[in-house]
């Protein structure tokens, strides 16, 4: 996956987890939970969806890397580099 594909994959997950929000307008460098209504259970949903969709395990000590879109991409791209993105 390219960086753009990782971004698209995260947006797909956020669309499912926060279906009332406008995900398309989020900025990459602001904390996700400052832009959309996300709580700790939602972050666990992101972790679960990464597990289900891409067989990627995010350990609890790394949850901080999921704070912004930019940090998500930086953290996840190496883990997803061999995965195919399919909408």
């Amino acid at each position, binding site marked *: 996956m390219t960086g753009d594909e990782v971004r698209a994959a995260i947006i797909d997950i956020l669309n499912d*987890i926060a*279906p009332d929000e406008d995900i398309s307008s989020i900025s990459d460098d602001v904390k996700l939970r400052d832009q959309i209504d996300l709580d700790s259970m939602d972050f666990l949903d992101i972790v*679960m969806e990464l597990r289900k969709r891409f067989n990627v395990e995010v350990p609890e000590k790394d949850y901080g890397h999921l704070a912004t879109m930019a940090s998500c991409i930086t953290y996840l791209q190496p883990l997803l580099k061999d995965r195919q993105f399919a909408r």
Partner: protein
Amino acid sequence: MEPRVSPEQRIVITGIGLTAPNGNNLKDFRESLLRGKSGVRKFETRYMGEVIAGVCDFDELKYQKKKELRRGTRAGSVSIYCAREAVADSGINWEAVDRSRVGVYLGVTEHGNVETENEVYNISQYNYDVKFWSHHHNPRTVANNPAGEVTLNMKVTGPHYTIGAACAAGNMGVIQGLQMLRLGEVDLALAGGVSESIHTFGIFASFNSEGALARHEDPTKASRPFDIKRNGIVCSEGGCIYTLERLPDAQKRGAKIYGEIVGYAINSDACDFILPEPVRQAECIRLALKKAGLEPGDIDILNAHATATRLGDIQECTALRAVFGGEKSVWINNTKSFIGHTMGAAGTLELSGNLPSFEDRWVHPTINLDELDPDCALENIVANEPKKVDRVDYIMNNSFGMFGINSVLIVKRFQA
């Protein structure tokens, strides 16, 4: 002779919110009952394929965001819809209500089977690896979930819980609300019952294994209480919640009053897991009459519990003959013939469908009663067509459930 009770002990129904397989508000539900419109249809369920069920089609997004729906349960959605509809119907100024003095009391037949089955199916797609088991499972399956979702949605900070009482639960939610109002624990009760059981295959499969699941080529004719050709229960979802208030509070705000709860009773058969016991049912009915200070002949409409199982209907009819035998003015009907068995919702929902009779004096019928089973013979079953009667002052609702839990409510036409 009715017992004298102080005004503060008189509990009245001031709002009704409901979803039934044939109506999503009291007006539409009542119209369906008077027009003979069933809400039973074919329904796909996991593992079993096509079954017959009563299915609700209320607008879940009327009071919930998509995210709430995703996180919560179907029972929670049914509860939120009914609670918000009840409050809207009551005309109460919700913004001015002290939410710490509101209690939410909901009867449920069971809760959590739907979500558990979904999660087991989910992990079956991942070779039963439990790391794919949802973190939402616990909040979705705790027994207070349906009532708890109401408190989150409506910002109620008073007490909330569910009352597990099999198919007697709907009446029990109302009884609990009444008792808490009389004790002064709350000033407004959101009380009733809900069921989402059709969303798990287990309830169908279990009734099927008991030989008690209704079958018919025409789903609308499958639920046939008292009929010689009845062959079992139609499982249905539904919900009904009342706003209950003490009479002086209701009068102070000029509330519309649907009726006053003047009698209730709960008892137990103490004899079998599933087979009902007519002697205890009759005792429960007599106890409710006694609390209300009424004689059997004072009841105008009796909404029977009968679920269209072969033996269950006979047992209830035996109990009714013991209490009401020879009474010519007690009109008997059954709502399950229209909507199937809405389980935890049944008591409150079925009572609701009869409350408009205080005003219009029409008794809705029991449909699909083509040939009365001689073992179910009773005076005055209103069969297939509604009946206009001279007076409706008292309505009785029976709801009985597994483990021999019996519940009876008596509502009186309101007179100040």
